[in-house]
């Protein structure tokens, strides 16, 4: 590729896409490179999705500073991306007098109007299902819940809409000096850019080491989750935090934007890129959840998953320029509150690059993203109108989540669109319901193949080799052996 970019962003997670979205407000040529076949495929797809309020910022840290900065962007982000964060508020639950000190700290840090420390009876009025054993609870009205995929994908779509180029499925393997330009090397070739931002999540430290920088390797800490059926909607209304033990916010119980209940994450060390779930981990998550909600209906679990926190020893964000490439910026260790801080990080990155010489000329023609209609949320008159316009709105392909063919087709044909089943899942919620693809799995691979003009056998779940279908039946083969 001969084209020279102003900025190359490495990593299509929520941070990379937030940076792309932010920089797309300016007159710049931007390329985003993502290793996997879709954006939102790494850390960003497996987290709790909470926009933590001011109460939870960590002073004397970069991550704390960027957390606060990010909160001031929420309204603008909601408007420009056409998404809505669910302002559920939160309850942090103390089980002993010793925990009370922590609640006080939250209150002081947050300085939030309407936030207060509640007696058990008052807490029960807000959340009838919480444990009787609580000593007190801190109520915070500012906590919000986001769909991690919806946010990541909305940021990507907005960035694309505003001129950012996306190349998916190419892994960056190194860097080359080309005078004042950085050559970004992938298996397919070299991309040239004046500025490069490495926000590659779990691979960020590895890439920083590739550029010759001295940064410790990441020590991934895994967190497992339980997802409960939407039947459980109403079990809890707020995000429930325990008073944390150790260096983590603890095992939460949270409503999601789609009506499920999410329980998790625990904290356990994990091998590199090991996102498997474990029997012990899931048990720990269940117990943690039951501590907050004793009657937690675990039998209503429809899915389990795990995510990896890309942690550095000091548990803070490390955002720094490469010592060898002065225009290569590394972002390493972006764990919690990465999602919450994503807008703040984007602005901070812009500031850092600007200070070193990146010209930021604001555009006047920034386009607001318009989200595609979600059939499940539409009133009946609107459903009828859409069906008359396009009968694909009348074909339900996922009955658990009430998703139509029209939405699936759009998700496949949008930009950056889905090219994998998991990508479809994250855009329109197919396969995320209680049957977990048992019914829509019969239709989706074929609908995907037809819409994208692909061979059915090439349809993948997420990775390049995650082929969904086996061979066709009635290929000539040797017969079965019988008894």
């Amino acid at each position, binding site marked *: 590729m001969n084209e020279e970019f102003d900025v190359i962003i490495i990593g299509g997670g929520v941070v990379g896409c937030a940076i792309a979205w932010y920089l797309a407000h300016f007159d710049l040529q931007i390329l985003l490179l993502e290793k996997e076949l879709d954006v939102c495929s790494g850390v960003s797809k497996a987290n709790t999705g909470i926009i933590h309020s001011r109460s939870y910022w960590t002073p004397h840290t970069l991550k704390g500073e960027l957390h606060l900065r990010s909160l001031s962007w929420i309204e603008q982000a909601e408007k420009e991306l056409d998404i809505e964060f669910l302002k559920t508020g939160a309850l942090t639950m103390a089980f002993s007098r010793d925990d009370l000190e922590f609640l006080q700290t939250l209150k002081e840090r947050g300085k939030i109007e309407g936030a207060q420390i509640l007696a058990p009876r008052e807490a029960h009025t807000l959340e009838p299902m919480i444990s009787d054993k609580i000593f007190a609870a801190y109520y915070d009205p500012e906590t919000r819940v986001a769909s991690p995929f919806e946010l990541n994908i909305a940021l990507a779509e907005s960035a694309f809409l505003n001129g950012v180029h996306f190349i998916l499925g190419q892994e960056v393997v190194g860097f080359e000096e080309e005078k004042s330009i950085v050559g970004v090397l992938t298996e397919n070739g070299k991309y040239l850019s004046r500025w490069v931002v490495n926000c590659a999540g779990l691979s960020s430290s590895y890439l920083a080491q590739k550029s010759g920088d001295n940064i410790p390797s990441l020590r991934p800490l895994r967190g497992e989750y339980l997802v409960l059926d939407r039947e459980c909607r109403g079990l809890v209304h707020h995000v429930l935090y325990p008073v944390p033990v150790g260096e983590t916010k603890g095992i939460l119980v949270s409503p999601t934007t789609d009506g499920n209940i999410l329980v998790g994450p625990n904290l356990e060390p994990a091998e590199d890129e090991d996102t498997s779930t474990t029997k012990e981990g899931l048990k720990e998550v269940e117990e943690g959840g039951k501590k907050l909600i004793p009657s937690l209906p675990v039998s209503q679990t429809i899915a389990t998953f795990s995510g990896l926190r890309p942690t550095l020893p000091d548990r803070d964000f490390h955002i720094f320029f490469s010592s060898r490439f002065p225009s290569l910026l590394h972002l390493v260790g972006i764990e919690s509150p990465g999602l919450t801080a994503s807008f703040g990080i984007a602005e901070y990155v812009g500031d850092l690059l600007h200070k070193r010489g990146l010209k930021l000329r604001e555009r006047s023609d920034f386009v607001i993203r318009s989200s595609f209609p979600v059939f499940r949320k539409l009133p009946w008159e609107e459903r009828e109108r859409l069906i008359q316009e396009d009968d694909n709105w009348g074909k339900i392909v996922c009955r658990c989540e009430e998703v139509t063919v029209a939405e699936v087709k759009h998700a496949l044909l949008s930009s950056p669109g889905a090219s994998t089943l998991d990508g479809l899942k994250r855009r329109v919620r197919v396969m995320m319901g209680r049957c977990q693809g048992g019914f829509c799995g019969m239709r989706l691979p074929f609908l995907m193949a037809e819409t994208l003009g692909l061979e059915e056998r090439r349809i993948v779940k997420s990775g390049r080799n995650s082929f969904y279908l086996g061979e066709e*039946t*009635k*290929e*000539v*083969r*040797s*017969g*079965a*052996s*019988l008894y």
Partner: protein
Amino acid sequence: MKLKEQKSREFLELICIVCPLGCSLSVTKSDDRIRVRGGCKKGEKYVKEEITNPRRVVTTTLRIKNGVWPRVPVRTSSPFPRDKIPELMKFLSSLEVEAPQKRGEVIAKNLLGEGVDLVVTRTIERKE
């Protein structure tokens, strides 16, 4: 004499499937006859057939061209010799039929010379 007799005897245990009891039957098979112990008359008949001439109804699908669905389910018209089923499957994988196909139609006659036909079990219309 006795030794010779013993050599030509085979001992088997079969589960009878005629009724839900699922009795385990002991079978002694020698050159000239089969002796069955542990079941009823129906079971004895079943087991003797299973040993001398085991047969199964085979159901499978065939490729169908220009149909609204890519496969048409079929069945053998009567039970087919069990031990020739691998050969039958190999033969069937080379068969491709054309839409439309109607339920009940005989799509192939006298499979592998065994006097058993292949019958369509689902009507597949032609693709427009």
